[in-house]
């Protein structure tokens, strides 16, 4: 017994070209790890993760704790997620269940367009418009803080969440809806009890991917999060999330120094976080395909 098979030169060419993607991803991981892990020869993992003071250029006693930066990332990301998920879901539900085809044809591209707003433009808007607005609302002198950044990051992540959730909802077979409506359920009950549960894993995947986008967002937090390495006590404190910290410091450090390695270690952390979120989302989507 043999498998029908044919030699093709072009197959090898295209396989090689496609492999570039794997090389890129592996290369990113390899470089981040090879440089970043070097930092832990001199910095203890405990100091790095739980130290609250990040002061790599201090005269005398340097300090490598990313606690405050990490807290900045957590504050901004979680707040952004809390804002973006309900809105993203609402947009997705509207698009897939309620909108007329004509409204859909108009709203869907508009949502796509939001994702094409460069994040530097959102940051600029934050600086010039949202921060003053929030300052007035909360009676602050300066509103470059975690909350302002979180709101803008939420806007940046909204299209990701909305469009993946829309895909998940739209792929629920029509018979689920028909069966539920035929049993006398109202449209809202149908959405809540039949459609949403059926699309659950796809929706969760959309949220995870949105979260990955939020964690990695750099320009907005660089511009409007306030850029302070002090440990934040509330949402209205200025913060400097991990991604912003890399962008701020990388150009100033001596290549190969401990500081350089430490920044790569932060990069490695961000990479691993988004990698894990991605794998989880992938597992969820596959599970759904099997079911």
């Amino acid at each position: 017994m043999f498998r029908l098979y044919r030699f093709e030169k072009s197959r090898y060419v295209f396989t090689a070209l496609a492999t570039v993607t794997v090389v890129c991803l592996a290369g990113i991981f390899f470089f981040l790890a090879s440089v970043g892990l070097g930092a832990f020869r001199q910095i203890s993992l405990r100091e790095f993760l739980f130290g609250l003071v990040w002061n790599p250029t201090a005269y005398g006693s340097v300090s490598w704790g990313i606690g405050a930066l990490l807290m900045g990332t957590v504050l901004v990301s979680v707040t952004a997620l809390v804002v973006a998920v309900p809105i993203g879901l609402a947009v997705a539900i509207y698009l897939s269940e309620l909108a007329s085809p004509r409204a859909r044809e108009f709203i869907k591209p508009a949502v796509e367009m939001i994702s094409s707003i460069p994040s530097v433009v959102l940051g600029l808007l934050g600086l010039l418009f949202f921060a003053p607005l929030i300052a007035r609302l909360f009676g602050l002198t300066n509103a470059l803080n975690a909350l302002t950044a979180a709101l803008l990051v939420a806007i940046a992540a909204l299209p990701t969440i909305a469009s993946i959730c829309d895909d998940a909802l739209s792929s629920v077979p029509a018979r689920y809806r028909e069966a539920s409506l035929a049993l006398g359920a109202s449209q809202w009950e149908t959405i809540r009890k039949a459609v949403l549960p059926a699309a659950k894993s796809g929706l969760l995947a959309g949220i995870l991917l949105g979260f990955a986008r939020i964690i990695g967002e750099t320009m907005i937090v660089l511009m409007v999060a306030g850029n302070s390495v002090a440990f934040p006590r509330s949402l209205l404190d200025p913060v400097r999330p991990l991604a912003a910290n890399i962008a701020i410091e990388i150009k100033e450090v001596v290549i190969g120094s401990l500081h350089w390695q430490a920044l790569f270690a932060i990069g490695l952390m961000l990479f691993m976080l988004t990698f894990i979120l991605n794998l989880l989302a992938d597992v969820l989507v596959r599970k759904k395909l099997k079911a």
Partner: protein
Amino acid sequence: MPPVISGHNVNVWYNGLHALKDASLEIAERQITAFIGASGSGKSTLLRCLNRMLDTIPTARATGEIFYRGQNVFAPDMDVMALRRRVGMVFQNPTPFPKSIYDNIAYGLELQGYVNRRRIGLLRRQPIDPQAMAASTDRLDRAVMQSLQDAALWDEVKDRLHKSALGLSGGQQQRLCIARSITVQPDVLLLDEPCSELDPISTRKIEDFLLALKRDYTIVIVTHNMHQARRISDETCFFHLGELIEQGPTGVVFATPRHPLTRDYLSGAFG
């Protein structure tokens, strides 16, 4: 006269599903051989083996031997592209490419490196004058015209050769596809239910076309329609659930089938 194609104990599996079981057959030169049987009986599968189009189904595996003029079709070093130039195939749905009528017909020869110097790049979109075509000595022009005339399409399309082939009717599209296949001057023509999507008048035109082609080509046709097999074929092979039940001259198979299954099928007891 030795058969053009002979198959011995051909087996095909799709993902472990045994779709063709130990089929052995002979296909005679310049005759029309019809494969008949219900859906899923393995007739299209065997047809796809004959020019290795089975390769395009990733899950398929095959064993056995098929000889085309002495060459083992299944041999690993078989030049599949050369084989397919000799053993052409036409599919169930008409499949003109999204190109002009002229370019559809010329495609097979262009693959072999023929170039019409007047039709390069943007010039392809220029209208084609039928008179100039008829007078042309260019090899592609001659071949395209010849094929269209053979398919009795020339008069229907000569004024729109540069227009998309997708604008033709279903029957015209299918005749175009057959014309496209014979432009490369194959030896054998395989047809997989070529008329199943067409109306009776178009079907009739295609049958006439095939009967005319019999003079120069060996033809194998898979058909659902036993009347069609009776009308045009010289040999008939009856398939059932992956087995080749019976092969013989069409008149004999239809008049005095040897196997009870064949008899039931032909009398309409199933299928």
